[in-house]
């Protein structure tokens, strides 16, 4: 049989390590903010865009994106949307309670690669803001390393917007344009109404020096990509984070496959030009 070296010195790739909830707060009706610290005291060591497999004792395990920037040491944050057993159980956890963590896994937004020195255009729909927030805050903490920053955020309703205080801070930061829109307004809403692509034709971007990042619900990508074409941003300068069920996180279980690609290994962040011809991708 093939002899290959095992990862991490032959340790168990399916064994979670324990972490403690240090903060848990409701964000919207469906979304909860959670902050964790590994019990071992080590840093998670993630990169913006990566995910972990999070276990709730007795309930199960689910892949969840890391929402905090690695520039913030000591703990890591996530947004859990209540859509399945694990996230429902996560919502019930209070500070001090335990979870299991495997990872981090997957590819990163190219904050220290292709994005460095460039104008950045972040386009986020709904909970897609959670993983991209890791990259945005990384950029905010190293602001001089990047050009102009444009952040577009779309939510279904005003009440479903995420990180409203933080997005206000982003909007006020020098060299940052932040725009948001909702699919449906309410009585108090005076902002933009419409899908996220309605914000795009008005953008002033320099296509030659702009790198775009897209993360949102599956239906969003096609339409945003069309608008990016109109803005003359080349496919090679677009990064997409794809959602799939990364069940094992280590390229074995098969659930996250997009044609021949295991998203847990080659993604979730892809350069769009690398997957534009992959039929199951978008």
């Amino acid at each position, binding site marked *: *049989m*093939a*002899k*290959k*070296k*095992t*990862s991490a010195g*032959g*340790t*168990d*790739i*399916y*064994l*979670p390590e*324990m972490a403690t909830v240090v903060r848990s707060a409701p964000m919207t009706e469906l979304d909860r903010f959670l902050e964790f610290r590994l019990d071992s005291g080590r840093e998670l060591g993630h990169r913006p865009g990566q995910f972990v497999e999070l*276990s709730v*004792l*007795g*309930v*199960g*395990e*689910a892949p969840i994106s890391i929402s905090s920037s690695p520039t913030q040491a000591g703990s890591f944050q996530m947004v859990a*949307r209540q*859509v*399945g057993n694990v*996230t429902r159980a996560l919502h019930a956890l209070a500070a001090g309670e*335990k979870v*299991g963590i495997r990872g981090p896994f997957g590819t990163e937004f190219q904050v220290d690669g292709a994005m460095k020195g460039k104008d950045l255009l972040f386009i986020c729909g709904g909970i897609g803001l959670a993983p991209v927030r890791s990259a945005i805050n990384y950029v905010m903490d190293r602001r001089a390393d990047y050009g102009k920053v444009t952040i577009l955020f779309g939510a279904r309703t005003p009440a479903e917007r995420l990180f409203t205080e933080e997005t206000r801070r982003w909007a006020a930061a020098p060299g940052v344009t932040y725009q948001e829109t909702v699919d449906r307004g309410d009585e108090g809403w005076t902002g933009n109404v419409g899908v996220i692509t309605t914000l795009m034709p008005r953008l002033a971007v320099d296509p030659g020096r702009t790198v775009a990042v897209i993360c949102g*619900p*599956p239906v969003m990508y096609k339409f945003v990509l069309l608008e990016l074409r109109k803005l003359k941003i080349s496919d090679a300068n677009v990064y997409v984070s794809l*959602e*799939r*069920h990364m*069940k*094992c996180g*280590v*390229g*074995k*279980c*098969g*659930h996250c*496959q*997009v*044609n*021949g690609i295991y998203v847990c*290994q080659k993604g979730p962040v892809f350069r769009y030009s690398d997957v534009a011809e992959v*039929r*199951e991708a978008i």
Partner: protein
Amino acid sequence: MKSVSAKALLDWVDDLIRKRRVMGAQARDDRFTWGPLARAADLRLDYDVTLLPPKVFLQPPREKLLEFSRAGGYTSCVEAEPFVLLGVHPYDLAAIRQMDEVFSQDHADARYLKRREAATIVAVDVQAVSANTFAGHMGASHVETGYDILLTRIGDGYVAELATKKGEAIAGALASAADADAAAQEARREVWAQNAQRLKKHELKAAPADWPGLLRKGYEHSVWEEKAKLCFSCGSCTLTCPTCYCFDAREDVGWSLARGTRVRIWDSCMLADFAKVAGGHNFRKNKADRYRHRYYRKGQYIPEKIGGQIACVGCGRCITACVARIANPVEVFNRLAEAR
């Protein structure tokens, strides 16, 4: 290489059973299954094909991954007692070698690899040809490596090749049997040549080496929709496949709710919810998309991971298992090879 009589071989098996945990191919009614071997007389080295492949011992249908408790968190479980796998056919061995590659690459899967290490494999060349095999087309009707011992029926007896240290460790009386003479060795080559022809119950017109190319241009072929229309999405083809290994993990909680286990169970890309994500979006919700995915895994995706080996060994189990009669890879690839 050794020559032994059928009687001497059975004596060796009985001796082996006294010393080791032995899994062997046995009859169940008119078909064959793998299971713990109680006595040599139950062993059927003349079986045609087993219902399930021997992957059941290397990647069990249900396997404990972890134990957990509220107080203590998670601990690893690895079930890997030494055992002998007695009577593996060459095509199944070819599949095991592919799984060795899949589970050892990138993040190595320690559970699979430990069980693989714990297994001593005694292969046997095919005697009775099963109804749906096409292993002869897939280059898997015989193998020349990968086993610890290889048995080949020659006339009234067997020749036994003790190929590895692991094989020698269980050889017992076989080690002191008479060396096979030149005629016996020639007879084994003849068995291999004959099996390459006999194990062709379906006529494959598309050479396996051409499968990736056929798939590259066959994504929109009408065959996917036509076959998938009849598919029950039952997963029988993947469960019986020796090169399918996708899995799910589930929590099994005791009624105290304080402790439990996480188990890994076989899963199937043919099942309707396989590519569903939390929130309900299903990335492969059409039967044709799932059906096509399976053939792409066999002919393109897994080959890309394991150095070009086609992830079908021609055992024919999927053909037999499929109640809708749509799972024959030979029919699919012949169709792809025809002009549209």
